[in-house]
């Protein structure tokens, strides 16, 4: 009984940590610009695919990872600079469609460059699974959780201790006021997209040994990230982490205990339930509507 429960929990927490990292990316961009970035999943794909293809070309793993993350960061900046910034007068839903267009475009390029096959990435450490009370834990899961934790701590420090982090926060709270105190808001927005892309690519790299990677892996993982961010409450960092983990655990538990056919439906019903009682998600800020 315990072994079974632990097994579902391990599965849920691992995939949940991935959702959390993607959700953090959504949150970051949402905070800075109120854009829901549907191309978030593509950063994840770029991270995994670039690492795999670079290592296949003989680049050492560590350098390949650094290059892949850099590529994603550059892409994040480009997305803000060339697709979001020029459309600043646009409606929220128009911006969503722009990011959907961008994700189709990026995916199309990735398919041309890297092909349509799935690729394997080696575990960072041993392939040997770890046994805990009769349940089995993939060693890569520890990497996912560990790196996830490091990233969250780094983000907290970034926003509370660094000038740039504070500038992003200030811009997200009040763009006009931020500009008045001398913050270059356009630069800040580009930074937010870049950091978000870095997060996505890191997530894509650490889970690739578990999930494989391909040009279209970002579609569904990106969507799940959005779902996690909404459960937690858009704009809340804590919410993104909790939402991601909750979504992952509910999926795994539903697959194990209820019905594998309907595990995704269970997860989506949970969202409806959460929103029904907490219309702004678990940790969403109460915003007073200005009339």
């Amino acid at each position, binding site marked *: 009984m315990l072994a079974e429960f632990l097994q579902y929990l391990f599965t849920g927490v691992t995939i949940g940590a991935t959702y959390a990292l993607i959700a953090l990316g959504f949150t970051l961009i*949402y905070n800075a610009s109120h854009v*829901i970035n549907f191309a978030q999943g593509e950063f994840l794909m770029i991270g995994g695919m670039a690492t795999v293809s670079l290592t296949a070309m003989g680049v050492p793993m560590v350098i390949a990872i650094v290059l892949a993350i850099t590529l994603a960061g550059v892409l994040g900046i480009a997305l803000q600079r060339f*697709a979001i910034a*020029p*459309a600043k*007068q*646009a*409606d*929220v*839903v*128009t911006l969503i*469609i*722009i990011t*959907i*267009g*961008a*994700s*189709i*475009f*990026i*995916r*199309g*390029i990735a*398919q*041309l460059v890297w092909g349509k096959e799935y690729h394997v990435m080696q575990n960072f450490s041993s392939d040997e699974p770890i046994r805990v009370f009769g349940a089995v834990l993939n060693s890569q899961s520890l990497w996912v959780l560990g790196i996830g934790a490091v990233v969250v701590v780094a983000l907290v420090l970034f926003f509370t201790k660094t000038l740039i982090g504070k500038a992003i926060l200030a811009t997200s709270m009040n763009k006009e006021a931020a500009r008045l105190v001398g913050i270059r808001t356009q630069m800040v927005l580009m930074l937010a997209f870049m950091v978000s892309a870095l997060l996505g690519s890191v997530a894509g790299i650490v889970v690739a040994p578990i999930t494989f990677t391909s040009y279209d892996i970002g579609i569904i993982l990106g*969507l799940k990230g*959005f*779902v996690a961010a*909404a459960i937690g409450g*858009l704009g809340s960092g804590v919410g993104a982490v909790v939402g991601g983990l909750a979504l992952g655990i509910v999926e795994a538990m539903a697959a194990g205990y209820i019905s594998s*056919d*309907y595990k*995704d*439906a269970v997860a*989506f*019903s949970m*969202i*409806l339930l959460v*929103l*029904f009682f907490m*219309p*702004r*998600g678990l940790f*969403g800020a109460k915003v007073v*509507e200005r*009339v």
Partner: protein
Amino acid sequence: MLNRFMQSRLQGLVVLTLILIILPAFLSNPFHYELATQIAILAATVVGLNLLVGFAGQISLGHAGFFGLGAYFSGIATGTYGWPSVPALVAGAIIVGIIAWIVGRPILRLKGHYLSMATLAVGFIIAIILNNERAITGGPDGMPVPAFEVFGWELSPFGTYSLFGLEISGVQAWYMFSSVILLLAVWFALNLIQSPIGRALRSVKGSEVAASVVGVDTAKYKSLVFVISAIYASLMGGLYAHFQGFITPAIASFEFSILFITMVVLGGMGSTFGVILGAVVLKLLPQVLADFQDLEHVMFGLILMLTMIFMPKGLLPTLTAAVSKRIRKKTGGEA
């Protein structure tokens, strides 16, 4: 802008009717008629969706769920249980309307992205059920749907019919039928927009708080328009199923929901004729881009992005604004 649009309500319908009458002169084979018929059905769906998105300002990312439910209800009722087509369509629309009303009340209290999220979840749940209930829906491989029939008279894209002594093919008959449906859909939407309900809706879009302060029951009107747009989707889904003759759960998928909302935004939110243009463009674009093979998706993404960046108000509103500006300039020059 909106006012002028209202005044030209009849003019718009007349222009659309003329286009639909003249169009067959440019359709050179049955495949073109099929495309035109599909476009008309999808256009009627997004005319309904536009009531919700464009006029009430509520974003739905799950509308394909209602479209798919309507399609499957028609397919199952006529195919499995031998119902006649029209009662099946109507019953499907009523059921979908009730479902929309039940889920709509709690969902529509939500704002902005949370509402999108909730509609997305509803759409996903519907798609998952259609995919999993193999015994009823045929599962992911889909199910055949019988031809549309009224009082024993069958409208099949493969038949031949005579109209005023002229022999016409099944696809031509379907084209005429779907054109009439589209005109009815537009006519109903335009009337609704101009009615007191429409005014209440626009006030909701402008500012929900202000609307409720002056005594508009915002929740009631939002639910109402949500139900109406779901009924539009259900009816059109049923017709689409009959026309296609075969349906799979993909028509209830998230991708299809995104396609619908993109048609609205690309064509021009809040412009009934704009969203029809959106449906035309998004249905034809893949056919045109199919010749580019590997580059198809890259080009589609690029076109979508660029259009929205440079025409954030949508195709038709931007084009009409440009045209009227030019006319004003011209007349100004002459004066």
